[in-house]
């Protein structure tokens, strides 16, 4: 069953030097599964995720032939309808918790405001729910973290707070933008298994954005490989390591191999025809 269907999504920034196309015609659909998006920095992964929530700021523009979430046309939805979807039905774990948490509000306030404001849950009940959400992402002293401010958290702690915050309303679709990049391996495994459980048990759809091809190939069902705002390859995760596209192969070759020869890592070879296409902009 299709949860999200995106056809020919484009994100354009009108800058002083002319339009910059950050996403140029991305199409994919997602069921209740784990979809990975990989690609080098600046390839448009984050912009693709934000476009789904219609949270691209001016001067950015979103265009798409079709963008439908659970039968609802996102391109035609009113602001009010979008707000009702955000958080409640579609969540997004933001990329960098250092900048994505409000610096002058306590973690507790940020975790409970949705519950208090939208669901009109009492203070104590909201607090208990937030504490439980923190415990679920392996935070061992949730009460202390609730009272802390973002600058008092480490990067990994911030990421887990962010994940907890987005999981509290139990969304149907979670867009996770590099959600585990600052976590150490054991905590990462725990957090991934939580996400995994939500996909399997609750049928949540997951878009997992990452730089880490190995992680994505292990964790996801399907992977989109992005380059300069386009999807250059879509593969089943298991086949990723055998991907044919030269860009994907290039990305794979950039990974160090444990136990492999200690030769210097090769850079990405951009001499192929795929790298020359600039879509007529810039």
């Amino acid at each position: 069953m299709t949860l999200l269907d995106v056809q020919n999504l484009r994100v354009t920034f009108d800058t002083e030097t002319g339009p910059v196309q950050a996403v140029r015609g991305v199409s994919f659909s997602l069921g209740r599964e784990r979809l990975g998006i990989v690609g080098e920095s600046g390839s448009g992964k984050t912009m693709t995720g934000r476009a789904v929530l219609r949270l691209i700021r001016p001067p950015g523009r979103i265009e798409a032939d079709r963008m439908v979430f659970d039968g609802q046309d996102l391109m035609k939805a009113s602001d009010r309808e979008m707000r009702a979807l955000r958080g409640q039905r579609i969540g997004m774990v933001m990329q960098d918790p250092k900048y994505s948490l409000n610096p002058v509000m306590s973690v507790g306030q940020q975790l409970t405001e949705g519950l208090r404001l939208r669901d009109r849950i009492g203070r104590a009940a909201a607090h208990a729910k937030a504490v439980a959400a923190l415990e679920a992402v392996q935070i061992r002293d949730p009460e202390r973290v609730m009272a802390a401010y973002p600058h008092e958290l480490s990067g990994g702690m911030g990421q887990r707070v962010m994940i907890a915050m987005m999981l509290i309303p139990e969304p149907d679709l979670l867009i996770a933008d590099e959600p585990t990049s600052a976590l150490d391996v054991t905590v990462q495994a725990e957090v991934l298994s939580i996400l995994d459980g939500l996909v399997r048990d609750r049928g949540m759809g997951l878009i997992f954005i990452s730089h880490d091809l190995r992680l994505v190939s292990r964790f996801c069902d399907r992977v989109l490989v992005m380059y300069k705002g386009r999807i250059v390859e879509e593969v089943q995760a298991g086949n990723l390591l055998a991907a044919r596209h030269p860009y994907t192969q290039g990305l794979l070759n950039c990974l160090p191999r444990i136990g492999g020869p200690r030769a210097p890592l090769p850079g990405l070879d951009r001499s192929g025809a795929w790298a020359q296409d600039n879509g007529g902009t810039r």
Partner: protein
Amino acid sequence: MTTIPASPRNSRALSVLRQIATGFMTLALTLLGLLVITFVISRVVPIDPVLSIVGERATPAQIEAVRQSLGLDQPLWRQFLIYVGDALQGDLGRSIRSGEEVVSEINRYFPATLELATLGTLFGTLVGVPAGVLAATRPGSIADQIVRLVGLMGYSMPVFWLGLIGLLVFYGKLNWVGGPGRLDPTYDMMLQFTLTTYTGAILIDSALNGAWDVFRNAISHIILPAGLLGYVSMAYISRMTRSFMMNELGQEYITTARVKGMPEWRVIWVHAMRNVMVPLITVIALSYAYLLEGSVLTETIFAWPGLGLYITNGLFAADMPAVLGGTVVVGVAFVTLNMLSDILYRLVDPRART
């Protein structure tokens, strides 16, 4: 893995306390510095305090007697100690013009300035902050243009000119407001002879006395000068609010709030505003301090018996104790305001507390 202080709430309270203590130290030191400066000034200006008291026809014996009564026969360091000691006991000397205690004169004049500046700042904040937010959330819109234009006028028009035009139109022609001074003469008499003085601020005192006719009259007098000062402060505050708000709305945590489905009013007035408050507190305090010390022109035009007028008149009359006493009070007000804004700033910004 994490670096969270042992008990966040306790250590935060402690550090705020410590900062308040530091604030008082600063206040004391600044006061001392002010006294040094005013003392030195009083000794280097070419005004002989003795002569200005006894007049030119006094005999040498009379002059000597006054010199001794003023302590001017003592060595300089003792004179300074006496000066500081007196100041700490609330004695800033006697005005040469009136022969009255400078402190009791300031007690009458300062509340007038405080009342005016406070009302002006209140107006500037209550109008300037929403105007700045409105402009920041719709950059380039008509609303933004209007806020910018109105602010620009506040920046560039001379206050005395605006004040005179205001008096001419609203008092002279339309008679909508009271004229110069804090009250009509009749109400002034009432205030002096039948009402109890609590604070020296007429609006507060008349309200506490339940004298609503005096209150209304005071409002009609203060509204024009306070509106004028408020306009100047609004121009500054709205401009700063706009730029702070634009900056905060571009931050990632704003997107996070929207991702959570927070309504736009909350994104702006809670998420962004709490961050805007951090630098805005300093801006408001600065503009308040500016109104407290810098409203001489306004006070002159509106015959407002405030501290600015007091110091200016003292200057023209070569009344050094009055001028220096007034200066010390302005300085103390400035430092106190600074201290308060510092405390407030730490209360809103958790990063400044650790």
